[in-house]
């Protein structure tokens, strides 16, 4: 009998070995797979118990904070409501859904400091507190952008050219971060300042001019015949009002936004040169913003909104029309703000960013965002030439509505025809013209006879005036 008992105990040993092996499977061997199973809500539930840090404006105003939601859980609330909807995004902790800066900075907002004691025994306290995220957003200017848009559909982006710090990023319509699903209609689903697809119209002539000057093939005095119409890709292209200008300088062509001149310049520069300068400005790349990639879109030629990008080298691209910002070119307002920012910063494009620093609950800076160069787009000499050409646009050309007293602005208008006489009105500009400290892009969607110089330029001017006055 004793032998049988020993053997029975051996069977028990085997059974218990089985239990330990299976426990190892779930705790160690298959643990990673289990933790990422879509049914596993443990990390979501854990996030409910974390008091996430605040998101703050450059003046310390609170844009997002956590408030108790009962039972040791927290929820997000947004004191500014819809003013920073696209920029800050939202987080619904209960559903585990988030967007915008709330999503991009989630690791910082939920970062919990692990002490040595905590590593051994687990956090002693039941709630953990995350880091605060400071942004460069300016609530006063953001509010002014909303006032100036006055309910019209459109976008405003303002960047400090020397640092890439974004001070204004406002879109209409804009969801209220406290109720992200309460916004209905076009523009609600995407942050249109970084994901909207608009034809840039004549504002793109700044890119074409950059390529023309920096490649050495043209200078501001180069003469081109600006008669209208001009056959481009087999279809007649007209100037505004079908006006024929005769031989004009490149400067005159920019000041008066002469389409037929720029179509010839673009075609003469060729696909490769245009592609090179567009790439330097950030076209055809995911915007380099501290924002979720899946919520942004690259600017460039597309057969239609949402379709794949078509490289400039493709014969499907109408090079002449692209050079004046028409054809199938679709851009984001952020992209055009980056274009004008590079001109204002003497040819150097700084990487744009919303975040300025991450600060832990003890007040120590955990991460400081230092300005970094995205691309050297053009030489400072070319940038200075372009700056003075754009100054003339405001002083004597299409952008005179931006010529406010004591502002000294420079810029370029854009009027992109969409359907019939419904236009997208654009203005990209910077100020002061001689020593730029702020760059803006303003876009108004679907305005009847919406000249950029009439609708967008005044908004840009007033905004720049406010930002410069605050800056003093």
């Amino acid at each position, binding site marked *: *009998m*004793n*032998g*049988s*008992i*020993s*053997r*029975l*105990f*051996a069977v*028990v*040993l*085997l*059974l*218990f070995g*089985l*239990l*330990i092996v*299976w*426990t*190892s*499977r*779930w*705790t*160690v061997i*298959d*643990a990673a797979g*289990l*933790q990422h*199973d*879509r*049914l*596993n809500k*443990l990390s979501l*539930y*854990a996030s*409910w*118990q974390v008091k996430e840090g605040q998101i703050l404006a450059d003046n310390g105003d609170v844009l997002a904070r956590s408030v108790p*939601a*009962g*039972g*040791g*859980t927290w929820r997000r609330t947004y004191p500014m409501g819809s003013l920073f909807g696209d920029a800050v995004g939202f987080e619904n902790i209960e559903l585990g859904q988030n967007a915008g800066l709330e999503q991009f900075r989630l690791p910082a907002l939920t970062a919990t400091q692990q002490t040595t004691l905590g590593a051994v*025994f*687990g*956090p*002693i*306290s*039941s709630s953990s507190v995350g880091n605060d995220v400071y942004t460069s957003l300016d609530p006063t200017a953001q509010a002014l952008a909303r006032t100036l848009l006055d309910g019209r559909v459109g976008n405003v982006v303002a960047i400090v050219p020397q640092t890439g710090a974004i001070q204004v990023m406002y879109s209409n319509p804009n969801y209220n971060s406290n109720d992200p699903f309460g916004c209905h209609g076009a523009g609600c689903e995407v942050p249109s300042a970084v994901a909207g697809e608009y034809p840039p119209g004549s504002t793109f002539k700044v890119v074409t001019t950059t390529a023309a000057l920096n490649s050495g093939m043209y200078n501001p005095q180069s003469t081109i015949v600006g008669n209208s119409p001009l056959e481009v890709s087999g279809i007649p292209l007209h100037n505004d009002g079908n006006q024929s200008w005769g031989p004009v300088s490149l400067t005159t062509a920019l000041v008066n936004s002469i389409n037929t001149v720029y179509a010839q310049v673009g075609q003469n520069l060729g696909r490769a040169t245009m592609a090179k300068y567009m790439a330097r400005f950030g076209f055809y790349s995911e915007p380099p913003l501290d924002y979720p990639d899946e919520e942004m879109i690259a600017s460039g030629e597309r057969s239609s909104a949402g379709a794949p990008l078509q490289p400039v080298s493709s014969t499907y691209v109408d090079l002449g029309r692209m050079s004046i910002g028409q054809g199938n070119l679709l851009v984001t307002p952020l992209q055009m703000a980056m274009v004008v920012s590079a001109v204002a910063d003497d040819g150097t494009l700084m990487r744009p960013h919303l975040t300025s620093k991450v600060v832990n609950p003890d007040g120590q800076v955990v991460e400081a965002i230092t300005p970094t160069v995205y691309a050297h787009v053009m030489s400072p000499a070319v940038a200075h030439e372009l700056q003075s050409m754009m100054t003339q646009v405001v002083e004597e050309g299409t952008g005179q509505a931006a010529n406010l007293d004591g502002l000294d602005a420079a810029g370029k208008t854009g009027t992109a025809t969409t359907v019939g006489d419904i236009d997208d009105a654009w203005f990209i500009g910077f100020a002061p013209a001689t020593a730029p400290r702020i760059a803006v892009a303003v876009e108004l969607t679907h305005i009847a006879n919406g000249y950029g110089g009439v609708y967008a330029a005044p908004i840009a001017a007033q905004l720049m005036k406010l930002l410069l006055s605050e800056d003093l």
Partner: protein
Amino acid sequence: MIWSWARSVVGRGARAVREPRSYGRNRELFGLLPASLLLTAGLAAVFVQRSNSLSDASLIYGAIFLGLCVLGHLFIRVTLPHADPYIFPLVAVLACFGLVMVFSIYGATFARQQAQWFVLGLVLFVGTILVFRDYRKLEQYRYLIVIASLALLVLPRFFAPVNGAYLAVSVGPVSFQPTEFAKVGLVIFLASYLRDTRQLLASGRRIMGINLPPLKHLGPLLLLWGMAMVILLLLHSIGSSIMFYGGLLAILYVATSRVSFVVVGLLAFAVGAWYLSTHIAHIDSRVLAWEHPFNGTLYNEPGGSFQLANAQFSMAQGGLFGSGFGRALLTVPGTHAAYLPAPGTDMVYAVITDELGLFGAAALLCVYLVLIARGFKAAILARDSFSKLLATGLSAILALQIFVIVGGVTRVIPLTGVTLPFISYGGSSILANFVLVALLLMVSDRARRPAGATVSLEHA
């Protein structure tokens, strides 16, 4: 290899070392120290976790518990001076650990109830030893015991099922699990019955290399098989069925030393279980949840794989070292909705693994294993067949109960809600297992008693 090692662990009767004088009673007393230290430290950890404050209550509870254990030890010292010195401290460690787990999972009220059950369990332990001082008297009542046990086993069938299985009887606020007591009774009966018939059963003819018992003696085997099937059929519980059938098959194997019984028995069980599990809806759903716990539809179905899948997630959270004592997520934060249903009873092993990790869970299994080894050792040292079979059966059924619930939680087998002995919250389990331990200690005392140094009545 594992056989020879297993033999070296449980030892051999002939080589057993007898200790002079104290028979390890002082070792038993010192063995209680870790138990009360564990209780004190564990309760202190829960206090810190809950309120960031240390209370002297943990010390007081620790002291009271130590006092109770010392009383239990003194009682053993007087009544069973030769008994195995490790069994009682191991049980105390498990009970203390269980009390701390219940405290951290359900809070002070439930912990107090569990402590009261522990005290009642100790009373029953003392009562069992006093009444059946010579446990072989039990043999006289074996038919009474088997009828009572079978009645207890089917009793829950007349009450409402819990999660589809008939395992508990609820009368008003009181709920108890009669199967816990039935397991002890059935082991006593079978040990006694096979003591008488084992020679007959073992004397079979050898056909094609397999020992077949005379046909008329196949009866008991068929009876066991029938009982396991009836448990499946009536109680809808695969786990209980495995536990009873496996435990009784273990006794049969030790009684007859016939592997053929085990093989035939297991095959018969597999066929029957397969047939019934495909024909009883509740068992079928348990098997489905076991096979596909992460199926989205099954997960969200009532009575689906929600509990089992969440148990896996909790264990994955634990990792090697655990997420920390009292850190397991049991309810959905901010609500009272259960994330892990039955955390202190069926799912306590998942909670332990989450909080203490693989190492903690493995350590717990090792404590159980040592307890079971001491049980088998008592069986080996025992000098009469009834004692051997009784200790074997009790140890085996204890091991199988642990295997059924831990295996169910870790998905080795389909989940059945039986208790984790001495740790799960619940009175029936603690009471029944204290009776089981009392019987083991009595067998052990008798086995290790030096010949002639006894005052007991030697009969038969």
